[in-house]
């Protein structure tokens, strides 16, 4: 890993993330692809935080993503809120739900932890389906007006404004995660990941640290969900299904969970692949599956790690 660099904030990665966010709209063929990458990477970041710094595998971040999406949509459509306050409320709601669910979830480790996240995500899906008056059921939550960023200023109907807001929120999320990793709190999380019983022996209340991490990750996923609502003006039922959870997790994994930048790389690759490969080959998920296997078996740091590896090889040849 990169103990020294990672523990500084802001560091080179911060600048890299900012640079990518700024350049994407110019490099990518479509602005909406850039928007989607920004949203998915924010959601994937919640998996990166859990897996990369505490070693917790969550198959259920879609629950908070969906909650954030529905809360944001409801506040904008039914309560006339603007984007920023609605998003902030959604993040708080996601964090709260994650804290409550987390009380149960962090009681368990390993596969039991994974299964609990999965069970919660399933309950969320069936709840969304059971209350179509609140969620629109299988037809989705529609008719969310394109609001403004805040105080009636900067309309989101302008695509550049929308991207700028999403990119800014995304950057704040990344900076926050970097800040957390670099803090003493992050150091404890890292020691829990490396050796849970030793951390416990050192006197840390492991469950409380995990609960804090789960809460923050829930807030992040809800942020991504709210951003998704701002992007689409609409919440599909699929926002809260298990496949969303899987997608965020896959993005985090193939990017590499060793650094927050991995979430951005993974989301970019996954979203770009689905944009460019699906018209050519509908069975493109095969490639995702192979990538996932390769990542888990050979590239613990994902594509980001591969990039570093190749970069290193080129350097040493010189």
């Amino acid at each position, binding site marked *: 890993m*990169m103990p020294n660099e990672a523990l500084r904030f802001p*560091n*080179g*990665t911060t600048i*890299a993330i900012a*640079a*990518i966010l700024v*350049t*994407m709209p110019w*490099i*990518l*063929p*479509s*602005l*909406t*692809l850039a928007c*989607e990458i920004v949203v998915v990477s924010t959601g994937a970041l919640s998996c990166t935080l859990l897996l990369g710094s505490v070693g917790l595998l969550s198959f259920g971040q879609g629950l908070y993503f969906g909650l954030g999406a529905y809360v944001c949509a409801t506040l904008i459509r039914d309560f006339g809120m603007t984007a920023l306050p609605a998003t902030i409320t959604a993040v708080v709601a996601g964090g709260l739900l994650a804290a409550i669910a987390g009380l149960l979830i962090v009681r368990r480790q390993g596969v039991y932890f994974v299964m609990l996240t999965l069970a919660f995500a399933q309950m969320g899906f*069936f709840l969304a*389906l059971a209350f*179509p008056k609140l969620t*629109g*059921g*299988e*037809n*989705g939550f*529609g*008719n969310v007006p*394109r609001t403004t960023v805040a105080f009636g200023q900067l309309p989101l*109907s302008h*695509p550049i404004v929308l991207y700028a807001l999403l990119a800014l929120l995304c950057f704040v999320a990344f900076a926050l995660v970097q800040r957390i990793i670099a803090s003493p709190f992050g150091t404890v999380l890292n020691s829990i990941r490396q050796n849970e019983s030793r951390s416990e022996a050192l006197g840390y209340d492991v469950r409380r640290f995990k609960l804090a991490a789960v809460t923050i990750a829930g807030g992040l996923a809800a942020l991504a969900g709210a951003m*998704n609502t701002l*992007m*689409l*003006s*609409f919440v*599909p*039922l*699929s926002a809260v299904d298990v496949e969303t959870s899987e997608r965020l997790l896959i993005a985090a994994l193939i990017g590499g969970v060793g*650094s927050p*930048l991995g979430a*951005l*790389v993974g989301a*970019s690759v996954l979203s*770009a692949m*689905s*944009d*460019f490969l*699906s*018209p050519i080959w*509908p*069975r*493109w998920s095969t490639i995702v599956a192979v990538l996932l296997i390769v990542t888990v078996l050979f590239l613990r740091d994902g*594509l*980001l790690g*591969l*990039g*570093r590896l*190749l*970069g*290193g090889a080129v350097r040493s040849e010189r």
Partner: protein
Amino acid sequence: MRTRREILAAAAVGVAAPALLRQAWAQQDAIEVGSLVSLSGTFANIGEQVDIGSKVAFEYYKTAAGKPLRYVQLDDQGDPGRAVRLTQDAMRDRGIRFFMNCTNSAIALAVAKEAASGGGVYINQAGADEMTGSLCNKNTFRWPVATYSAVNTTVRPFMKQFPDAKKWYTITGQYVFGDSLLKNLKDVLGEVGGQHIGNSYHSLSDREYSGFITAAIAAQPDVLCICNFGSQTIDVLRQAVSFGMKRNTKILVVWSTGLDQFQSLGPDICEGVYFGANYWHGVDAPGNRLLTGVIKAKLKVTPSYLLTAGWACTQATVEALNKAGTTDVPAVIKAFEGLSYEGPTGLEKVRAEDHQVLKDYYLLLGKPKARMRDKDDYVDVVSAEKAFLSPDKTGCKL
């Protein structure tokens, strides 16, 4: 130093490669039509067929309003969010104004809104009543009938034939579409003197229906009415028949997709079961003769509902463009309103008040294997009727 390499790595794998694939769009003279189909994901089985049907129609019609037509396939992967994105891109970056098709109602409702806000024209195959009801808009049209029509054109002719079949039991999908079917069914039963003796709700993710079916059998109904859609329809019917329900109960499937479902069920299960459907290839109508002829010549298959749905939305768009004689959106919308043409179900007419295509809906009866004239001749057409809510009752304000 790491930073620079990280940027390079990210650029190499994630960002630059797609940029290289960027294509230059030209062909200003052609009319590009965006087709929202799901080729991967959960709805791929629907999207594939709709896609083929539309493509065949494009090859057949070739031009509209005096300009060449170009089919632009937009794979939404079954995800409404993705459909919205693709529509926005197509409008913003490629100037596409005409859109069609969908594989589920959520996609159609989401794309309809984009079409309205971006000034496009969209015709789709959504099942949701909201499409030409509370969520209708000036820019969107819908080809299949609403649940009100499906229920009225199946239950009424059925009751005419079996006035003694009073006791109805329903198995309903507990989602918005299933609930609309059920509500309409209760209304119609109330009017024709039927009695709704019970209902079992199943959820969108149920796969095992024997519990609902035992409950239905225990209620001893005259008619079992299935109110859901897609593969769940097939599963409920298959399991109901396996529990011997055909022996002393009549079965009515209000909303089926016809041929493709019959093929996955097989003739033994279909025999004696009543199905409601938006299309049947055996119907004698000029538009249908044309369609079945072209599909048979090109694909060597009998057109299913899904193929036809892809064809029908293309045909309606072409007819409207030809009538308008221009690609100017307000003119095309005006041409659409009140448009009538020989479609796959006979004379089809677009209602101006709610943008619903007024067309026949069929009540079909599965026939015994011995009486099938060819491998796709699964049913007899019992009735073909039009029944639509009056525009002031749909809740649609254009």
